[in-house]
């Protein structure tokens, strides 16, 4: 398919959303298209960036992600301070967060994609990620069914830096912590490259820097329009929940998560009214547009690799629900809006990634 007719189809769908659903949802779909185009166009993969750091001592991807977090925080925190109707991505520090973040970091390396990565790669037409997407949704739904049990194991109230200290101090704390992380990463790659007898790779690479700037702007647009930060995982769980509801596969009315007022109401509405679902669909569309007219290459997988990838995709969905988000919902949106759960998520997911890379190598991905 060529880009022009595809752009026309996407424009018609945006117009239909504007006419039949709402102006907000049409605007969020457009934001999603932009996110998908940037993620796919710049190949801005959170999973890849972490893998490059560990396996190749190449910190350019992680530096791009740190820039993204800093820019997003610099834009989001003043908005949160000035507009009380905007909400931060506040997840509760909990046992489920610790377990979920570790398992998510492990599985995202095997499945070669986090939440946004799975979406944009599915949009690009990569068979493994397209096959993982429905299992990600099923896993997210199963995680939501069990979330009440996991939270009973131990949780504290969410902590938000903007609420606690005001947006100026929250931003200064966040930027200082990100700068510290950048210094630590630079020190690590310098030392590791020296030990390997290689020259350190460049830290600042155009594709990652440009991707970071564009994603920060689009994430801020999402916050301004939706009133809440960019998220991915909730939409997946909702899609599977709607199918489960229609087929009587689960008692959602008696479930802790799905009987909450907002979640129960969303089960009755079309997913096109859900802010997370509409940006997810937009990301798929944006990535499809990028891939149009280009041949997408993907390494063929053997049977064992397929089985391992699909199980990892299911676990990816389950663990992201337990961890209160993926690299987008917990890391980017959590940290940039001052949620402590984002800062807990990152080291645990990174530890999981170290194990995930070993499993990935073992199965020859």
């Amino acid at each position, binding site marked *: 398919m060529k880009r022009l007719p595809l752009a026309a189809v996407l424009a018609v769908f945006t117009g239909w959303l504007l006419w*039949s659903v*709402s*102006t*907000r949802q049409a*605007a969020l779909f457009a934001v999603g298209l932009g996110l998908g185009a940037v993620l796919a166009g710049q190949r801005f993969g959170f999973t890849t960036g972490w893998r490059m750091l560990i396996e190749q001592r190449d910190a350019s991807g992680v530096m791009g992600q740190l820039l993204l977090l800093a820019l997003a925080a610099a834009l989001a925190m003043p908005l949160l301070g000035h*507009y009380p*109707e*905007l*909400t931060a*991505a*506040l*997840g*509760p520090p909990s046992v489920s967060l610790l377990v979920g973040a570790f398992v998510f970091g492990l599985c995202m390396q095997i499945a070669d994609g986090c939440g946004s990565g799975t979406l944009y790669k*599915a949009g690009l*037409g990569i*068979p493994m990620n*397209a096959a993982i997407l429905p299992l990600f949704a099923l896993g997210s739904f199963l995680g939501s069914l069990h*979330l009440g049990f996991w*939270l009973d194991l131990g949780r504290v109230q969410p902590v938000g830096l903007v609420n606690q200290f005001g947006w100026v101090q929250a931003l200064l704390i966040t930027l200082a912590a990100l700068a510290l992380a950048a210094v630590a990463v630079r020190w690590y790659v310098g030392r590791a490259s020296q030990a390997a007898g290689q020259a350190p790779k460049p830290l600042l690479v155009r594709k990652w820097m440009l991707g970071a700037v564009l994603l920060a702007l689009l994430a801020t647009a999402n*916050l*301004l*329009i*939706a*009133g*809440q*930060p960019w*998220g*991915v*995982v*909730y*939409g997946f769980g*909702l899609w599977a929940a*709607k199918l489960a509801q*229609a087929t009587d596969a689960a008692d959602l009315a008696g479930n802790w*998560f799905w009987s*909450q007022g*907002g*979640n129960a109401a*969303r089960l*009755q*509405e*079309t*997913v*096109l*009214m*859900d*802010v*997370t679902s509409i940006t997810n669909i937009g990301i*798929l569309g944006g990535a*499809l547009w990028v891939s149009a007219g280009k041949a*997408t290459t*993907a390494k063929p997988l053997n049977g064992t690799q397929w089985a391992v990838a699909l199980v990892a995709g299911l676990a990816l969905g389950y663990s*992201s629900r337990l961890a*209160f*988000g*993926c690299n987008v*919902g*917990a890391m980017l*949106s*959590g940290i940039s809006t001052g949620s402590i759960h984002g800062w807990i998520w990152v080291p645990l997911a990174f530890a999981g990634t170290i194990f995930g890379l070993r499993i990935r190598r073992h199965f020859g991905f």
Partner: protein
Amino acid sequence: MTQHTTLRLVFWAILVAFLAWDWAGSKPVDLRLEPPLIAAGSGQAATGGHCSMPD
């Protein structure tokens, strides 16, 4: 048509079919209750679901 293209078409056909099924079976959208285009400054609290929020 390559196998890759066929798989891609199947993926999009399933997604579009799901969205059409969902639209047909869900509560109709009430355009009179349309949310504000921009939440910031609207005075209305955000009510969307998010992965970071359990309840």
